[in-house]
């Protein structure tokens, strides 16, 4: 099976927010809405042993997405071919149940269009053989995109060699996006 996802190395994120900005520009997201955001963790510890790092939040492209099981209009699904959690704009009724149900706060609502939107890992760019815009613009090389089920992909190698972790796994959503710990 193919499961496209991001692997994000927290040691390489320099908190430049280029991923957030390029995503917002590329997808023309409304004011205050994000598909990916970088949180600042810290500073923590006492001088001289202090640390500060960035945590880029992304859609986790879950295998058992909490957002899908609450959709009353069957407007969103886990795509079987790519593993990407997709939303169909023409089917969405705009009830925002999915936004409430997503444990990661990964979805956003477009008030002007009246429907919910999310990161689908740039399908229009993938069609042209390009990487998602956030990966291309990441100056630190923290974001790696690929098929986490393909042993030959870089993403697969990083997940396994660097022991990438997933967040809020106890909620049972089986997230695919993973992080190399800082």
């Amino acid at each position, binding site marked *: 099976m193919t499961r496209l996802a991001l692997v994000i190395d927290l040691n390489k994120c320099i908190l430049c927010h280029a991923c957030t900005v390029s995503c917002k520009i590329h997808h023309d997201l409304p*004011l205050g809405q994000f598909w990916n955001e970088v949180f600042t963790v810290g500073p923590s510890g006492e001088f001289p042993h202090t640390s500060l790092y960035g945590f880029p939040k992304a859609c986790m492209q879950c295998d058992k997405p909490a957002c899908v099981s609450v959709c*009353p209009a069957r407007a969103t699904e886990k795509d079987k071919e790519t593993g990407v959690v997709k939303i169909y704009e023409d089917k*969405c*009724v705009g009830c925002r149940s999915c936004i409430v149900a997503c444990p990661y706060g990964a979805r956003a609502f477009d008030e002007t*269009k009246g429907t919910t939107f999310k990161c689908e890992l740039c399908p229009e760019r993938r069609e042209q053989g390009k990487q998602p815009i956030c990966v291309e613009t990441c100056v630190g090389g923290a974001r790696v995109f690929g098929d986490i089920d393909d042993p030959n992909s870089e993403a697969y190698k990083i997940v396994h060699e660097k022991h990438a972790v997933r967040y809020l796994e106890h909620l049972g959503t089986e997230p695919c996006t993973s992080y190399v710990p800082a």
Partner: protein
Amino acid sequence: MKRRRANTWDIRIASYLFLAGVGAGAFGSLALLDYLEGGKLHLPTSITALLSLLLIGIGTLLLVSDLGKPLRFWRVLLNPMSSMLSVGAWILILFALTMLGYLGFGGPVFSLGGVVFAIATAGYTGILLGVIKARPFWNSPALPLLFVTSAFSTGIAVVTVLASALVIYGLDAQSSHLLSQVDLCLIVAELAIIGLYLTIMNNSAAPAARSVEMLLRGKQANTFWGGLIFAGLVVPLVLALASSEGVTNLLSSILVLIGGFSLRYTFLAAGTRALLPGEPAEASYL
């Protein structure tokens, strides 16, 4: 950094949860009484059915108007088993049809059916929130129980208001007295459930404890203590114990309704989710 409020569920959804509860509780309690009395309360139960249809109609309008794409609401009905929200939409329709059936034909089938669908309507509003795992404060079977208790309590309150405002309502003094006795029990039960609920949530996972904090001391504290606990439960309880006169009854009923709305509003707003590393806490609220 100033953040824009998340576009999730707000006062319109809380109002809907409240109105559906009042409508269900009002018809449910009178239909049960009518069933037990062998159909002697047909007139007041019919008038209550009309009021409940109105309340549920307003609630449904709020719900549809809250959609980003209101004209696509039919998609919710066409996918009945897709989610709790769709199941609930059908429960509402069946409840409304049962009330129309009662208005048209009366009889024990529709009164008892009305009681069943009233409980289903009031209960599902709690299950709708309860199945959302991302927000642990809602993940308890006690939530639908609390909403059903509040629904019947506020339902009886609205019946009391009707009885004092409408001369032709025709609810006999004995039934009226029985209902206020039941309401007294429901208020005590609601206080107990809220106390137990918050105690358990306060000792469970971090997001649920944050929700309790938000209710007791945080952003929702005024509505929780003032609207729900004091105005909505304690004062009506004291009033009911002090006197059962018409005016006191009416005042107490109005306060119970304020409490019912405050319950839905604060419990909805307090449903926070777990935070990711570095995530600002305000982003996790509804």
